């Protein structure tokens, strides 16, 4: 009946390994990582790719411009560029298939008279402004995980065309969406950014752009003018595609195109100021005006080229990729193509050039794509020419070479030219497909195997949990479930069901608080029901949990939709009152006194306990001193003294925790002869150490407003542990652990966390770090964000020690393996099981929702949180299991040694 301990541990380990494997498979399938090349393209991009691309020396912008012109062998077709971005304009509005076609008469007349070149530009999801602007300027399709990799950096560091223009000394002017200013800080000579925050404003936001337009067109000293109109997107968000405001808005845009065309292009055509007007939209919109997903309506954006020499040849409008705009602009203006570009040039725009220039443009584009492909190839050797695209390139290069030699002899036929162009086109299309496909494709096999592995590990966890339950409670199946026990399962089912709804994912904090409070209300009901035992004390404990839970819920409003509502944190921060500092001191004192109180029951066990108590008192006072000295006066946290003070506190906490854990069995064995007592005392001591060490660390790291939250969480967890350890309560161990886990999850949101990545406390991740280190900052960020679930997990050690567990009394009768299994079974398996249910359910939901509108804005960030929670649970369970194993085995070992 009962399972061998080794076997049991082995099965858990296998399940954990399966979970990790499945998770990695799924994550790498769902969020493909695209290795982006760092650095910028320089003069070497005009030479064929070779292994030793040397760095070029810094040149004056003017010299660089001349160098580029000499190297590229293509004279720039235009002198100036006007990039007009109309946010959210679907290409159909301009190119037909929509009844709004007549709303832009001037643009239509340009298209009808073949003076403009227009395309459906396919945008890659996520179809929101920032990633689309990045795609247009860098030519690369970013993966979702890019958000994580450059979390703190808003400026676009990748090689991009705006930077290339800046490097050859262009003067640039930006009017419109201030996203541009965040992406390219300091690159614009003049700018007027408007915010896209007020979606209800559809008029002023565009007027603020247009009011400068006549001045800028007259001023005439710039090379690049960026206009970004947000009004149309706002109209869509308010009233959808067929809003009554859409027609007038399109007319307004048409007027602007007309104005630019008439004033600059026509009048300056003769004055060697050839201007290219490019009208693009970053993304389209759905019928109801929303965007973000990958439906045709959202990805169908516009690319419209108006300028001297442009003529449209075909009658239909081709579909290009949005990233094709980048190499086209780079080649037209004679700058190197950005390094990570995955697009290929729009050949129609090069028809006015001479044949050898067209081929040269294609060659340059091919070299750039080939470099990128070589960099991304798994074997980084330069000679990896086995791939299909390499042979395609060699074909095209060979044809190009023969055409060149024939051209010198004037014997090149038009067939030769056509073949070369075709060969280049073939290569460019294949390479570009390969590069873009890699960024957006979802390998179904990988995803399915990942999900299946996760499912298997979840089933294993639940099976082991059930088996363990059967062993510990022999009458598990016949036993009538209590309401509180059933509720543990119901809560998980409700949470899983709710995760399918995007608005409940956004507002998850309500659910956790509501369910946790309900659980404790049910416990309250149960306590009233049982007339035996120390009733009033238990009632008091539950009341404390409920009241602190309510305060915690009110601390941060959280979520996405109701953030504007008042909450405690906002009122504390807005009033600039001394209350924050006051509350911070109160909570530090509360934590210290709670710590000393919990240790006080062990005072009689000798000096080591007093020593530990003193070390915590010291650490607490150090934290207090740090808070008073550095946090009170604002920006003083970055100087050397502050960093040193924090590092001292880190050192104190780490040393005292480690020393306590390692030394406690040895000291306790000296104090007492009773093995059971020794083990219980050691566990109690280590549990206390973990909890208070963690709490003091959090009081140091968390934002000042959150310190009270931390201490209330601690109070809640301690109250739960005490409640469950009372004689009168018949709360089973697995129910208690589930309750603590739920408290930890509810507390996660009380600390102000949400399911968007925006609430991660980036500033806190640099406390006490003297030099920049991604790893250390990452660890600190994890520690700050997962403060509450980790506290819940670490409290398991204490919960084990105070449990009136009969099994621990039978230590002389059972083997150590069996004992460990009984003691550690639930504290390890319950968090693992609950978390794996949530993980599997959410993985499946993510897979089902992969075409949902909010997949990139709501579901994917939530999934990142779910994955990191899994990591947190694994780490926490590992710490608990190893600590308990160490203590028990050392105590038993010392005992045996003494008996011998």
């Amino acid at each position: 009946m009962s399972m061998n301990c080794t076997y049991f541990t082995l099965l858990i380990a296998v399940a954990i390994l399966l979970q990790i494997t499945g998770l990695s498979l799924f994550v790498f399938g769902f969020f493909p990582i695209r290795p982006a090349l760092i650095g910028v393209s320089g003069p070497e991009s005009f030479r064929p790719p070779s292994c030793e691309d040397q760095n070029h020396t810094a040149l004056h912008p003017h010299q660089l411009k001349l160098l580029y012109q000499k190297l590229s062998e293509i004279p720039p077709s235009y002198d100036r560029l006007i990039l007009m971005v109309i946010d959210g304009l679907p290409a159909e509005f301009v190119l037909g298939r929509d009844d709004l076609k007549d709303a832009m008469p001037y643009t239509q007349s340009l298209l009808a008279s073949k003076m403009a070149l227009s395309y459906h530009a396919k945008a890659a999801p996520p179809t929101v402004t920032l990633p689309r602007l990045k795609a247009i300027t860098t030519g690369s399709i970013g993966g979702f995980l890019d958000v994580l990799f450059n979390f703190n950096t808003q400026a676009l560091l990748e090689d991009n065309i705006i930077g290339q223009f800046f490097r050859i000394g262009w003067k640039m002017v930006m009017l419109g969406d201030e996203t541009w200013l965040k992406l390219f800080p300091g690159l614009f000579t003049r700018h007027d950014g408007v915010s896209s925050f007020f979606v209800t404003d559809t008029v002023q936001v565009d007027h603020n752009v247009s009011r400068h337009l006549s001045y800028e067109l007259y001023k005439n000293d710039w090379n690049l003018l960026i206009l970004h109109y947000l009004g149309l997107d706002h109209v869509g968000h308010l009233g959808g595609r067929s809003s009554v405001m859409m027609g007038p808005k399109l007319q307004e845009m048409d007027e602007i195109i007309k104005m630019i065309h008439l004033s600059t292009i026509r009048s300056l055509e003769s004055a060697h100021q050839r201007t290219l007007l490019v009208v693009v939209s970053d993304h389209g919109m759905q019928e109801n005006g929303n965007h973000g997903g990958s439906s045709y309506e959202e990805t169908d954006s516009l690319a419209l080229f108006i300028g001297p020499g442009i003529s449209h040849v075909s009658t239909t409008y081709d579909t290009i990729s949005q990233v094709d705009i980048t190499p086209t602009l780079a080649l037209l203006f004679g700058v190197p193509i950005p390094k990570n570009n995955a697009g290929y040039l729009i050949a129609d725009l090069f028809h006015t050039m001479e044949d050898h220039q067209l081929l040269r443009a294609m060659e340059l584009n091919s070299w750039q794509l080939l470099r990128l492909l070589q960099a991304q190839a798994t074997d980084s050797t330069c000679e990896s020419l086995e791939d299909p695209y390499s042979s395609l390139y060699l074909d095209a290069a060979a044809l190009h070479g023969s055409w060149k030699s024939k051209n010198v002899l004037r014997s090149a036929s038009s067939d030769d030219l056509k073949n070369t162009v075709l060969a280049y086109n073939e290569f460019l299309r294949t390479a570009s497909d390969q590069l873009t496909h890699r960024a957006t494709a979802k390998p179904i096999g990988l995803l399915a195997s990942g999900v299946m592995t996760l499912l298997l590990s979840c089933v294993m966890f639940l099976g082991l949990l059930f088996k363990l339950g059967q062993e510990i409670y022999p009458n598990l199946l016949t036993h009538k479930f209590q309401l509180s026990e059933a509720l543990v399962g119901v809560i998980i089912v409700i949470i899983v069901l709710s995760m399918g709804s995007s608005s409940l994912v956004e507002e998850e904090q309500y659910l956790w608080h509501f369910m946790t409070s309900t659980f404790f209300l049910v416990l309250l009901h149960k306590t009233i029901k049982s007339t035996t035992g120390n009733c009033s004390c238990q009632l008091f404990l539950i009341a404390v949990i409920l009241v602190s839970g309510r305060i915690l819920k009110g601390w941060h409003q959280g979520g996405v939709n109701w953030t504007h509502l008042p909450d405690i944190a906002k009122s504390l921060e807005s009033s600039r009152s001394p209350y924050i500092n006051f509350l911070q001191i109160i909570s530090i004192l509360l934590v210290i006194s709670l710590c000393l109180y919990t240790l006080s029951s062990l005072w009689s066990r000798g000096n080591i306990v007093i020593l530990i108590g003193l070390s915590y008192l010291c650490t607490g006072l150090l934290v207090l001193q740090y808070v008073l000295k550095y946090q009170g006066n604002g920006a003083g946290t970055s100087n050397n003294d502050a960093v040193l003070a924090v590092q001292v506190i880190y050192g104190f906490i780490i040393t005292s925790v480690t020393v306590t854990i390692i030394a406690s069995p040895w000291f306790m064995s000296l104090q007492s002869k009773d093995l059971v007592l020794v083990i219980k005392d050691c566990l109690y001591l280590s549990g206390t150490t973990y909890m208070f060490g963690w709490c003091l660390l959090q009081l140091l790291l968390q934002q000042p407003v959150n310190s009270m939250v931390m201490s209330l969480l601690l109070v809640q967890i301690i109250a739960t542990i005490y409640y469950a350890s009372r004689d009168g309560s018949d709360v089973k161990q697995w129910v208690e652990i589930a309750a603590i886990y739920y408290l930890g999850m509810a507390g996660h949101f009380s600390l102000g966390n949400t399911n968007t990545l925006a609430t991660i406390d980036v500033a806190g991740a640099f406390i006490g770090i003297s030099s920049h280190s991604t790893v250390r900052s990452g660890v600190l960020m994890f520690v700050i964000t997962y403060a509450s679930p980790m506290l819940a997990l670490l409290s398991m050690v204490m919960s084990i020690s105070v449990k009136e567990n009969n099994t621990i009394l039978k230590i002389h009768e059972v083997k150590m393996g069996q004992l460990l299994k009984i003691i550690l079974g639930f504290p390890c398996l319950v968090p693992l099981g609950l978390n794996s249910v949530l993980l599997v359910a959410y993985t499946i939901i993510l897979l089902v929702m992969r075409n949902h509108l909010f997949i990139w804005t709501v579901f994917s960030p939530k999934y990142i949180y779910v994955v990191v929670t899994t990591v947190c649970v694994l780490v926490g369970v590992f710490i608990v299991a190893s600590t308990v194993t160490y203590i028990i085995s050392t105590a038993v070992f010392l005992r045996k040694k003494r008996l011998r």
Partner: protein
Amino acid sequence: MLFQIPATSDIDKVDADMKNNKKKVLSPSKVVVLHLICGIGLASSFWLAINVYSINLIENPVETLRLVWLIQVPVVILIYSFFQKDKNQSSYLKAVARGLLGLPVGAVVNALGAIVLGAPVGTRYFQRTLNWSLVMSAFTFVPAASVYGSSWVDWHRIFALTKPNGFIDYMICIPAYGAVIGAWFGAWPMPLDWERMWQEWPICVTYGAIIGYLVGMLASFSFAVHHVSSQHVKGD
């Protein structure tokens, strides 16, 4: 056969109960009438609100809730006081007074429960929470206070142990539990971003409570009917 044994013992208890207070033997028809009057009271308060005062729960939650409890409380107290348990000093007026006393106590308990579960706190919501908790008190506490008075044993039996015993107990506790559970479910749409007026506290919670209350009354009524029919079968 196995399942009938507890049923008969239950009936025996009911019989014994009925013998104890011979003056007020409770027949199923009385249960029906009682619940009907409570339901009519509730319906008439809403009818009055809409047709006479032209207010409704969504636009004027405070006024409507006030009207509901102002009408419902007297109805409930007057009806339930007929069935008071305290036989020794069976003064009808005393039962009425106990019911009135139960109203604020029940309101405090309900309000505390709601706040713990996340109801908004603050001066803006004070009126709403106050009137809502008075309505909930009329659904849950007031009937029990009228019938049981301050008998801790009875309160403990039906609300803590959930072991109702006889028609009166069922009549009180099933609608009360219905109202509480309904209110709990009624809170579900509140965090959703549908931007409807009725998602505000305490409108949808009130709707949930009323639906739960009505379902509870229906259950209690059908229980009574079922019980009588089984009794008839047994008699035959």
